[in-house]
């Protein structure tokens, strides 16, 4: 059992990162920390794709002649997904700046109280 998980250690890391990212997303009070949790959650998924592309003893997908290469397709997917993730983080931060300028707090609890008595 352990040996099966050992030689799939990256997938275990993927599962761990996704879980930690989700935990930060749900549990943290600070809005900026939520966004960081979101980006950790996404990088976990990217690692899943990259490990799927990895070939033991191969080389990176710059093709020069025969040989064992890592597969380029998942890496393209991750490239696009990273940029999408950054775009989302940037927009989220813009939203947080606007919320802060109005309510003066980044803490979700105080935010809820302030909005409740509005």
């Amino acid at each position: 059992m352990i040996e099966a998980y050992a030689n799939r250690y990256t997938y275990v890391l993927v599962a761990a990162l996704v879980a930690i990212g989700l935990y930060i997303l749900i549990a943290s009070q600070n809005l900026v920390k939520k966004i960081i949790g979101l980006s950790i959650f996404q990088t976990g998924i990217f690692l899943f794709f990259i490990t799927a592309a990895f070939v033991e003893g191969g080389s990176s997908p710059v093709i020069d002649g025969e040989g064992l290469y890592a597969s380029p397709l998942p890496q393209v997917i991750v490239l696009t997904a990273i940029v999408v993730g950054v775009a989302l983080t940037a927009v989220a931060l813009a939203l947080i700046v606007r919320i802060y300028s109005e309510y003066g707090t980044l803490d979700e609890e105080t935010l809820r109280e302030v909005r409740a008595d509005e």
Partner: protein
Amino acid sequence: MISAFGAVLFVFILVTALAAAVLRDILAVIIISGAYSLGMALFYAFLLAPDVAMTEAAIGAGVTTLLLLLTVTRTVRQDHNRAIERPNVPALLVCGGFLIVLLMTVAEFPVVGDPAIAWDNPAITQYYIDNAYKDTGVKNAVTAVLAGYRGFDTFGEAMVVFLAGMAALLVLKRGVFTNE
């Protein structure tokens, strides 16, 4: 089998991720998330994905951390009496459940880096490696697939970046990026 470097890198990333979850002071968390993105870039490099590692490095260190800092510069720093956040039990249960579901499926995955059955479907991946240079004249297969075969994805991606800029302007109700 897991290599020494892989194991240590595994621990490093796990430690930084847990630290980001646990710390309460937002600036510390941002710094730790910078370190986390360093580790991820290393892992991508180790898993033979230099393009991705480069993107993670450039965007992780160059853009995200700075934007996070910018957002935080404008906020007041509450002096926290406690460095560690209180664990939120219901969230812990949800994420623990999610983790177990994922771990159950991990056993089904092919072994890391196993070239033999790395692909049940050799058609597509093998095709890129054999014909990328013939079709596009580009040696770097990732760029060939990125801009050539799946050019439309990249078009969508460029639109997402463009949209992020527009969205930031719209959210902060600005007409222009910088004052004329």
